[in-house]
């Protein structure tokens, strides 16, 4: 899928007009909160962390604690599952669990 990165290589689900578009399958199926907790450094580019350490691309790494992103993604997937079950029940299909 296409995502957008700002000048600090932080990922965004939508473009505010100042971002670059990149294509990656890393975030396929991921919710907005998950995407926006990551940095994506394209191959051939580099990012300098605040402590001076330099990282070259292609690198995909979380800048927020992964536990928060994982929790948001699980909640998103639970919501997707609930929506699907509701839609199936409207069609008369009973879903267990």
């Amino acid at each position: 899928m296409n995502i957008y990165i700002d000048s600090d290589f932080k990922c965004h689900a939508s473009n505010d007009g100042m971002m670059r578009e990149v294509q990656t399958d890393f975030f396929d199926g991921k919710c907005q909160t998950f995407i926006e907790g990551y940095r994506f450094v394209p191959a051939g580019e580099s990012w300098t962390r605040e402590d001076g350490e330099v990282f070259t691309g292609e690198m995909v790494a979380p800048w927020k604690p992964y536990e928060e992103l994982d929790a948001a993604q699980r909640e998103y997937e639970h919501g997707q599952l609930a929506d699907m079950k509701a839609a199936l029940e409207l069609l008369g299909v009973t879903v267990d669990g």
Partner: protein
Amino acid sequence: MSVQTEINRIIAAVSAAHEKVSEKGGTTARPYLVENLEGAIDTIPIGVQLPTLANPGKASDALSGKEFIDGSGNKVTGTIATKAASNLTASGATVTVPAGYYASQAAKSVATATQATPSISVSSAGLITASATQSAGYVTAGTKSATNQLTTQGAQTITPGTADKTIASGRYLTGTQTIKGDLNLVAGNIKSGVSIFGVAGSMKPGESPRLIITAQNGSSITATNGTETVTGVVGSSGTLTLDLPAFGTWTVTATLSGTTTSKTIDVIYEFPADLSGSITFTVNGGHGETIRVYKDGVSAGTVALNAEGTGSIHLTGCSGKTIRFVGATSGYERSISAGSENQISVNVFPDGAIYWYGREFVDKTGGWVAKPNESYTATLTKQQNYMVMQSTASISSGLVGIGIANAMNLSKYKTMKIKVGNNPASTSTQNKFGITSKYDTSNWPNLWVASKTFGAAGEHSLSFSASTGFPLFQIWPTSTFSINSVVFE
């Protein structure tokens, strides 16, 4: 008169009689015959037909002695008694009106009483009591009041002196009572050996309080004892002398370029306070190792790392100095410049070792486990100071994971580094390493938490943020190469 005429007359009279019977409520039928007339007359009802009553009265509905006919035609005599004002009785606040008929308005008076006047008393404990004794009876609206003037004490200011001063008891305070205090009543202003109002003196005769502060040129200095504040700026000499208004406990803060350092000092004598370059170093390295610390080549102490490979040391006077940390097989050196942060993390991991919680790689059966891609094999060999992992065949795609029995806690780390060497057969940029959320051979590409591609020998770094465990870090080669070390910093 003819016979026919007479017959007609008689017929008409008989018909009229029958019709009169019907008119009177009797029963008759044609032909109107003479012989039927007697029977018809017998059917005429005797007396007046009364109307049907929808709500008939009874004896209790009429005055005593009055008579009427009820719905059944029976005579009924009324029972309602006639009453007058003389029948009313009063007791306390209650007036009783007996049941009956009153031809006109009836009234009865109740007893009256005078409203009592309260009396007010004040006990020695300051309890104010108001009391009134009221006699029984109706009391008309009104107000009764009483007063009792207390002895008062207005606002005043009392300045302590050599003799006790008192406020008399039994008085109502109409204003604020102020007992004067004095900011100079501190130990530093009182001669040593003398106590004033419980404050023991600490001043040595002939001395005044002063602070000589050492800090970076340009540092803003603030000294405060909670009530007074003295400020200044450190000059090119690197020192600042502050004359204090009093001895005692002073908190001194130095600020430069947004970095702040504080120290609390009990000023008894002229006291030097060196706030330049005070830094706490957090040291990460091999478990149980002792790290030697040098400041500009001079020993500044040691750091004993715990079982998790961490320890700390606080050093002062680091500004402009080179601080060096020396471990068993490697070292870390850093020059401290003006405005350095006061907390620095230092990594002194031995070269080539794989560290988890500061523990060295122990054994692939006891700790690290190689989980090769099912289509390829991989060997995992521990050398003295590093681990070598090599694929047995040239791999165009695949994944080799190095897993551990229990999840790692990566809260102390934010960087994963690998050193790749020993003839990487390709410069393909599709080689990848990183950390994943779990081990699942059917779903690996979707389980990366963080990943980094590389295509050459040397050191490669990956940044991440996490605080809980991941069971696996993985290296995904698309060519054959060796991994000299995997380090978390």
